[in-house]
């Protein structure tokens, strides 16, 4: 079934009306999936990673790079298990992350900014797109759950912090404020009043003994990498289980 042109599709099982019918079905499913994953994945992320993603002064070196990939690899793994296993579509992770970003950006602009006065730079979301792209590529090229769990899961976690550092590093510039050294992110937290998010709620690195000197982030990233290699197959199977085609007599 060699293709004659690089951009040609492989021979298709349907032609004519049936091809148009199945294409119409594609579009319906795509619209369905778009809103489903914006709604579902965004809710999952908001309620498990939420605050780390909402606020600049939560994006620390210990928990943010650990929790975000760990919670974010869930839906991509589950969706890949359906999209790859049954359709050979290597886009589950990219689709989920794109939907997540759409949902987050809309809310940051129309809720935080327009309704509740926050400058958007205080609520800049993190990106998981490089992690998602690499996860999709590894699954496609390896066609292996084991390889994707190990290499994909690790890459997903390890790429998170370096992909986001170019966005957020500048907020970690130090400022002398109130007779203390703060980051610009901390100053945002101090200045822009949040009645329901007092500083003490932040689950951030408090500082502790470090075997590896000042290198806190790689430790968190590698810890997340390990956990993601376990989370990936767990959610792959969860996705597979949810995508059951069973009909039952009673519920």
């Amino acid at each position, binding site marked *: *079934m060699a293709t004659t042109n690089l951009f040609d*599709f*492989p021979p*298709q*099982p*349907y032609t004519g009306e049936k091809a148009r019918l*199945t*294409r119409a079905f*594609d579009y319906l*499913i*795509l619209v369905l999936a778009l809103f489903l994953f914006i709604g579902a994945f965004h809710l999952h992320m908001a309620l498990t990673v939420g605050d780390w993603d909402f606020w600049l*002064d939560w994006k*620390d070196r210990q928990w943010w790079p650990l929790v975000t990939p760990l919670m974010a690899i869930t839906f991509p793994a589950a969706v890949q298990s359906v999209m790859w296993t049954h*359709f*050979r579509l290597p*886009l589950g992770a*990219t*689709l989920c992350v*794109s939907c997540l970003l759409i949902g987050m*950006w809309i809310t940051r602009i129309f809720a935080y900014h327009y*309704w*509740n*006065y926050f*400058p958007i*730079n205080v609520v800049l979301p993190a*990106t998981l*797109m490089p992690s998602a*792209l*690499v996860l*999709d590529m*590894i699954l*496609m090229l390896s066609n292996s759950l084991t390889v994707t769990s190990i290499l994909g899961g690790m890459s997903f976690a390890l*790429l998170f912090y370096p992909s986001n550092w*170019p966005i*957020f*590093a*500048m*907020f970690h*510039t*130090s*400022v*002398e404020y*109130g*007779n*203390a*050294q703060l980051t*610009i992110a901390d*100053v*945002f937290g*101090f*200045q*822009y*009043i*949040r*009645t329901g998010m*007092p*500083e*003490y709620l932040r689950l951030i*690195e408090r500082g502790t003994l470090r075997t590896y000197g000042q290198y*806190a982030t790689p430790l968190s990233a590698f810890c997340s990498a390990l956990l993601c290699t376990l989370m990936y197959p767990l959610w792959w199977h969860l996705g597979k289980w949810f995508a059951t085609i069973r009909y039952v007599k009673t519920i």
Partner: protein
Amino acid sequence: MFIHIKNYVANVFLALTCLLAAGPNNAYAHGEKALEPFIRMRTIQWYDVHLTQDKLKINEEVTITGKFHVAEDWPRSVPKPDMAYLNVAVPGPVFIRTERYLSGQPLMSSVALKLGGDYDFKIVLKARIPGRYHIHPFFNLHDAGAVMGPGQWVDVTGDPAAFTNSVKTISGETVDMESFGFANGVSWHVFWIVLGTAWLLWWVRRPLFIPRFKMLKSGHGDALITPLDKTIAKAILVAVPLFVFGAYAMTESQYPNAIPLQAALDQIEPLPPAVNAGKVNIKVIRTEYRVPVRAMNMVAQIHNYSDQPIRIGEFASANLRFINPSLGQSGKNEDDTLVAAKGLVIDDDSLIQPGETKTVSMAAADALWETEKLDGLFRDADSRMGGLLFLYDPSGRRYIASISTSVIPKFD
């Protein structure tokens, strides 16, 4: 024609912006009555709270000053104030907080308060969004909620676009906080979203679900991934991590002195005692709340350890102030809706002489107990109340006592 369309689009956009943004900001009060009465009465006991002005233009500052006593009889259901945050109740960042001090020291983070401690505070706010706001200082108490201080109305006028907020970094660079990092952040997001979308479109352009499923089932799954697909995937697999780590390395060299988020708890000691300072000792013997007349009747034994005769001037609890009208010293803000200017009646209002111990009956009576939802106290799991009693000597010097007592309801 084009200009007309452009103007029309601009107008529609402006109208949409106005609609999506919060409407006219004539905000009412905000949730002061949310907490159980015993928390509002027996945790942070605020007094002497003042705002420097009630009319501001954008970029102008208002300073809130005040004092509070941390009640000794702290409710057992509320975790001890080892983690507290001095906040301001306004509808979000309509102001920015530029300075904050506790007991004269800058307070940048959360703080541990000491039971029985006396503190004063100062918060400087800079007007950012026009509107009419009711401003309160308040404490976020960990796992307990927002304990409000007294509030005051403030009007802010002017053009919000004129608001400026710049901060100087340690290296001397001036940063515009309203826009800092926005363009850079958006650029990175756009870059990655374009790449992600390109990958999605690469697949979406071809027949998807039913045909691919059928081909896979019929054993033609290999044809679904073309050699070109694989080549692109390999290129992305190599290029994305290389690019990510390249950009990371460049960022590291651009911000070599970036520091982690600062997480230290501020350590601030209380001021010398101002409440229960040893000059006056008050023991409340019995307290009844008479429901029909909305009166808190307290019988208290007062011992005057000072060298001056004293009289009771005011009882304050959960920001309600019951003033003894026969004294001129207190009740200055009689237009404050939470002040009962004649609310405190004392059966024997004569001076308590130095060294004298006297038992007096006081009635703090006003509908405010009900309207401020403090009368639900005796239906709570903890029906003890507390407050500050202000006494004055003839020279106007003030003696403050924090009292607490269980309350017995009377329904007749």
